[in-house]
């Protein structure tokens, strides 16, 4: 893709905190956050576990591998796996551990 460009990415936590980081075209949002010394939740780093789930509210993201942990309904709702997600435009993404908990609920309740 367009190597060299940097996409301005707003990370937004549910508690109201927001931070802007620059994500290079060839790095994941998680990788860029780590470079900026920002702690985001993560687990497998292979797109299987959904621990790093974020939700894109504005912008364009591409996954570099199949996002195995997300179902079609999740992808349609804008959920992405930040360990394998690369921005293709400036973005605004909801992050933090409670984004993952939205993927599934208590089925008996």
């Amino acid at each position, binding site marked *: 893709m367009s190597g060299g460009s940097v996409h301005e990415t707003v990370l937004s936590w549910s508690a109201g905190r927001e931070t802007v980081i620059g994500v290079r075209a060839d790095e994941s949002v998680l990788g860029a956050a780590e470079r900026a010394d920002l702690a985001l939740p993560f687990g497998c*780093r292979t797109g*299987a*576990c*959904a*621990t790093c789930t974020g939700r894109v509210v504005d912008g364009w993201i591409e996954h570099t591998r199949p996002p195995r942990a997300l179902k079609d309904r999740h992808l349609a709702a804008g959920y992405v796996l930040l360990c394998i997600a690369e921005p293709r435009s400036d973005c605004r993404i909801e992050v933090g551990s409670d984004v993952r908990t939205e993927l599934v609920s208590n089925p*008996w309740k």
Partner: protein
Amino acid sequence: MSDARKPNETSTDEAQPGGSEGPGYTTPQAAIEESTPEKVAYVMGLYVGTDVDAPDFLGVVDVDPDSESYTEVIDRVEMPNRGDELHHFGWNACSSSCHVEGLERRHLVIPGQRSSRIHIVDTKDRRNPELTKVIEPEEVFEHDLSAPHTVHCIPDGNVLISMLGDRDGDLPGGFLALDEDFEVEGRWEPPGEIEMNYDYWYQPRHDVMVSSEWAAPKTYYPGFDLDDVEAGDYGRRIHVWNWEDRTVEQTIDLGEEGLIPLEVRFLHSPEATHGYVGAALSSNVFHFHDAGDEWRAERVIDVEAREHDGWEMPVPGLVTDLLVSMDDRYLFFSNWLHGDVRMYDISDPSNPRLADRIWAGGHFGDPAPVQDRELAGGPQMLQLSLDGERLYWTTSLFSSWDDQFYPEEAERGSVMLKADVDPRRGTMQLDEEFLVDFGELPAGPARAHEIRWPDGDCTSDVWR
């Protein structure tokens, strides 16, 4: 890192108990007679999946009632990375290597369930263990495996780890072998013997191993989804292996009543061909045994689902852990969603008899606080003292599943509780004086999972 002052008397490893050449005890009865009461417990502590910016850790819990730091987390060995989800772990050697001169039960093999990273911790100084080696995930992925689960040592000093997925978190899983220097030796079994994997137990005298099934990592990692059950993405089979040949000889489909068979426990006697497996979702316990011409599995305990006020469907107990006492007389298991721990007399292995039960936490346990501490989860991973008189448990199952069923545990952290067991009368009583609060740690509230003893466990020791 230490959370408490170093005690004056630092207990280090002692001579091999029982006077045998290698680690462990010559027989299960020797373990009961020759062991001394546990003084420290090793407990998995977790921050994975939370916003707490700290790695998972091995917690050292003081369980010596005569100690000043009784019921405290006296030391934490932090892992070098975040995101591991430490889950189950095991020893480099157990009583199965009792005959191997020079081998010590000293190193813990601690996998990250989500990261596929494998850590080696030296417990020479029992109260201050030390991380000595890390196997990075890439080395595991090379063998097309991921999501390490159960660690057992095998009789020659090597280590075997059940692996739940392929390198992408999909099926099939398999087994990874480490050599005695904790180098990855490779895949233990011919690829493709099984699809799903989870726990396993072996009985070398009978040349047999039994393994169970959870699901593909990509299925269970994000959380529990009934759609996945309906799609057949969760396990319901157990596999009987030829231990020497490393091949599956028989697969038993437990059917609808055996959905998600998790922990596998053989009786400890090396002569025994009886064992149990708990089916978490169906909330049943199956007894399996060698019937001569084939292995059979029969449902012997059925936990009824219960109506819950305000919930739409009857709630299963969710049998998530079980163990057999060292004398092979009692079976204990936890109903994580209901909130009870049960004790069954298994003198007749195919006819377990309910002996006693304790309610503590859970969604039905009328959860009375222990020492004013609200319990944010249900009883989960169990561990029993070798003499069968003290049963301990923690409350976290798996970070993403906790968040679905006990969301408050992320804010409050786990607890470790204890019951006093009377094996002669077959009774249990919650010890209200015992509470280890993982909600009170420096980096923030932590989850707590599997428990191990330095001198052998009711859930890991095997005899040859």
